């Protein structure tokens, strides 16, 4: 079994984890148009090479980020999402718009 190193739980079997999609920047939901939002939701880079993506340890519902090589099937690095996200993401509509 392939081992994935969870930043919270340490090395665990990869079957305990769920792949959660590519990490890409979210357009501002209050400002982007419908096409941009569709692309954000459905369209993917699907790159052959090193990618950054979301993973979840399903037993503990812990979400984190991983760098993975999609050609060699190697996990390069796993790290907590706080390395990238250090501010709260605001989804609610902006007052007065």
């Amino acid at each position, binding site marked *: 079994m392939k081992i994935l190193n969870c930043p919270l739980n340490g090395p665990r079997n*990869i079957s305990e984890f769920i792949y959660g999609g590519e990490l890409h920047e979210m357009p501002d939901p209050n400002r982007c148009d419908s096409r941009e939002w569709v692309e954000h939701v*459905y*369209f993917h*880079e699907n790159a052959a090479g090193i990618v950054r993506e979301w993973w979840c340890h399903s037993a503990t519902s812990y979400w984190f980020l991983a760098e993975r090589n999609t050609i060699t*099937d190697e996990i390069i690095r796993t790290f907590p999402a706080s390395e990238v996200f250090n501010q709260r993401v605001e989804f609610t509509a902006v007052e007065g718009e």
Partner: protein
Amino acid sequence: MKLYQNLSNEFGYNIMMENRGQLTLAHSDAAVRSFRWRAEVNQHLGVRSELVDRQTIRELVPNLNMPEDGRYPIMAGLWHADGATARHDAVAWGYMKGACERGVELHQLTEVEDVLVSNGKVTGVKTNRGTISCGSVVQAVAGTSSVVAKMAGIKLPVHSFPLQAMVTQPYKPLLTPHVSSPHVHVYVHQTSRGEFVIGGGSDPYPLYNTRSTLDMKESLAAAALELFPFLSQARLMRQWAGITDMTPDYSPIMGLSPVENYYLDAGWGTWGFKATPICGQTMAELVATGKPPELIKPFELERFYRHQQINEAGATAASH
């Protein structure tokens, strides 16, 4: 299906088409309901597909394990009498022969390195053996759809996952139809060589690698033994994987692209080559007329922008 039936004659090449029927198993009330609905839809569209009971299943597949109180009791089946298999290599070789006889030039061992686009219109393809200028391009590259589309500056709603399958040692002929179970995620059929082909869903995460994993072999073997316990002594002869290009609604993308005269045929994912003949015919019509034929119009890339996905959850034992 109708196009396949005449393909061997048209090519002058035997594609080893075997009309042995396909049986999909229902292990829950919900599955029985959904199969009844699928049978009705299929019949409405002129496909010979029907819901069959346990007795009929027993007659169709005498070797199937059908305990009354098993973990996954078999409650009913969806029987597609015209379901068939063909040798996939022979289909590809047949097309190659047929195309070359009609004056098509094939360049093997030629890698596409870039797609040349000027003023939003495709003008050529750069390969490792030189540049070919052209009026239009059809992209039909399966697993690497996203990589090639990116060369033309197009982003696709596709994720590439490996799909693994395996075959056992040969046995005497004892399984006639193709049997699949979406519930235990497996399909099993016996080839004319006697080998049992076992396959199921895609891998759990995207990858451009056809490596083999023990996890997948374990889960496929466990599911196959649930249906056919006599396979417990079977030895695996070979295993392989292919890269499947999966779309969010599991339906293919066919038709126009944001680049003029650049036509997409992608996202066939776990569908295999069953739609190849009709796909070729409709895509050829699209290139010839520049207008998507009615049959493939709903499958255009634009459907995602209109939120008009075509939900397709009926693929053979696939994980959706």
